[in-house]
């Protein structure tokens, strides 16, 4: 194996270790504490919605008009009819395909 390729392998291993540290770090930190302060608990409680929103909002704004419309329709129908995430996925996909291949 040439040295440059070996460097890539080391890079991937370093990235894997860094990722694993993030996945185990929170558990180690939280189990070292005797009691969780209320504000920390409120912060932790907010994590999923806060993080996942950052993966949604920029796509809604910058993803293009077709993506924006598809996301809005999927959101409205899923909320109105209380649909599962999978059905919502199908709706979003159908809308974006209709816009791209039928309407345009």
């Amino acid at each position, binding site marked *: 194996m040439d040295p440059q390729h070996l*460097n*890539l*392998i*080391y*890079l*991937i*291993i*370093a*990235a*894997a270790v*860094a*990722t*694993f540290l*993030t*996945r*185990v*770090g*929170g*558990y180690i*930190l*939280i*189990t070292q504490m005797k009691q969780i302060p*209320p*504000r920390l608990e*409120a*912060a*932790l409680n*907010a*994590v*999923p*919605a*806060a*993080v*996942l*929103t*950052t*993966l*949604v*909002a*920029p*796509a*809604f*704004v*910058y*993803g293009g008009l*077709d*993506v924006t419309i*598809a*996301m809005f329709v*999927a959101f409205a129908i*899923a909320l109105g009819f209380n649909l599962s*995430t*999978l059905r*919502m*996925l199908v709706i*979003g*996909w159908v809308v*974006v*395909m209709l816009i*791209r291949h039928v309407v345009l």
Partner: protein
Amino acid sequence: MTKDEFWEGVRGGFPIMLAASPFGALFGALAVDNGFTIADAVFMSATVYAGASQMVGIELFGNHVQPWLVVLSVFAVNFRHVLYSASIAKYVRHFTFGQKFLAFFLLVDPQYAETEKRGERGLAITFSWYLGFGLVIYIPWIINTLVGAIFGQMIGDPKAIGLDVLLPVYFMGLVMGFRKRDRFLPIVTVSALASVAGMHFVGSPWHVSIGALAGIVLAACLPPSERAAAPTGVEKEA
């Protein structure tokens, strides 16, 4: 280790595996495009196992960015996992050391979301369920990377087959699943605005950390509500 719980996990993870599959293939294709061999791409999917950060990693590597900066970027993109493992600590405390090691290795976004959801509905988080849910996503992720790396050119334009819309809609569904939580609307509003601002002024992938931090800091700073004092109600499944 019970078979029923394992297969319940497999069934639960199956739709997520389907939704993630195109991205595994896309990663494989893009990795080869950025100078990885097929084996490198498969090796990265099997060891890092974090889609968004893998995409960031190959992008930076392809642009000949310094290795330490690539690793730092992967760490930053994955930093949310620190919060995940802290948040699910209460559900996995009973796992053995080896089980915890494996469980944290498999802790991707949907694994976290489903564990949290299941825990809040009062269902037991058994290692069998967790492993079934995790493996049905992990193993196809590696296989799809291989397929994508081999047949990279066959994907062509991901937009033409509507791949680009799947991930945001999927994450939107997950967000909606948490709508019964305390302070849901202010947190989501602030995170949405901050992430869009972050995308606009700083750029990807920093918008993730910026937006998440904004919502979390807000939640910590708001005065404790009356609902927070009461025991958490059962969350409705999305």
